């Protein structure tokens, strides 16, 4: 339980950064922190004490493998989620660069004049 709470602290820091900061790169960093902590949380849920990695080796006992193997399902879904995170980060970075080219600033309160 202490591991879960420490993990949620990282996510809370990312949420605070996303809401309260005005710099666009700070907002992107907050988004990235939330993403990392959520991926880590899903893997933490699937962990077993004294677990084995879910890869079957030839000399391995099948019964022991199914008793002690960690959960492969969150690992597979987090694998897709990490790569999607890279794609959305590239999209956010592209928007930030375009905004800087147009307004010459990263301050969100300066970019409020979004018209025409």
């Amino acid at each position: 339980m202490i591991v879960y709470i420490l993990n949620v602290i990282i996510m809370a820091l990312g949420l605070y950064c996303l809401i309260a900061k005005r710099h666009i790169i700070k907002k992107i960093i907050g988004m990235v922190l939330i993403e990392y902590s959520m991926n880590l949380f899903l893997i933490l849920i699937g962990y077993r004490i004294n677990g084995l990695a879910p890869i079957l080796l030839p000399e391995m006992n099948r019964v022991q493998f199914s008793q002690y193997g960690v959960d492969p399902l969150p690992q597979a879904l987090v694998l897709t989620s990490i790569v999607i995170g890279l794609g959305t980060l590239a999209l956010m970075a592209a928007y930030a660069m375009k905004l800087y080219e147009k307004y010459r600033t990263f301050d969100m309160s300066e970019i409020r004049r979004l018209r025409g």
Partner: protein
Amino acid sequence: MALFIVILILMIAGSVVAVEIKNMLSAVIAAGIVGFGVSVMFLFLKAPDIAITQVIVEVLSLIILIRITTNADNEAIEKKIDNFANIVGLIFVGLFVAFCFWAFVDMTAFGTPIMRVSQHYLSAGLEETGAANMVAAVILDYRAYDTLGEAVVIFTSILGAFVILRSRGKKKLTEKDMEKVGIPE
């Protein structure tokens, strides 16, 4: 368990630096501490596939973030403190942490997962799919449509980034094109 707590405290320190420091390049590097810490955690949590993927993705995202940071002049913009945004942020974060604590009370303890579906994957995955790596069996056989949707999402986001970053839509007209169309000088 103690190892996990040590790495998580290091990651919390890195994220505090990333949130609060004024210099943007330092903030990006501090976010990199969190990413590589997550990768080490994956390795100790018996998830080697994800650890490899996380290292590669972290390197690429650091390159992207440093690119947009060094693009701009690096001045601090926090001239006046926005009290309203700080208060709203703290209220939301407090509500979120309280809700998480309330939800963690009902969860099973760390290290004893509920594995109703995954137990079948572990015990019968080799016969049903022929893959020795159960993660590969899940993403390529049991949940292959999910992987297809993921590929669509990545394709769309990279296409969007490409379209936004393209500075000129078409190539400029040359003199030869002018003559061909017949526009007078």
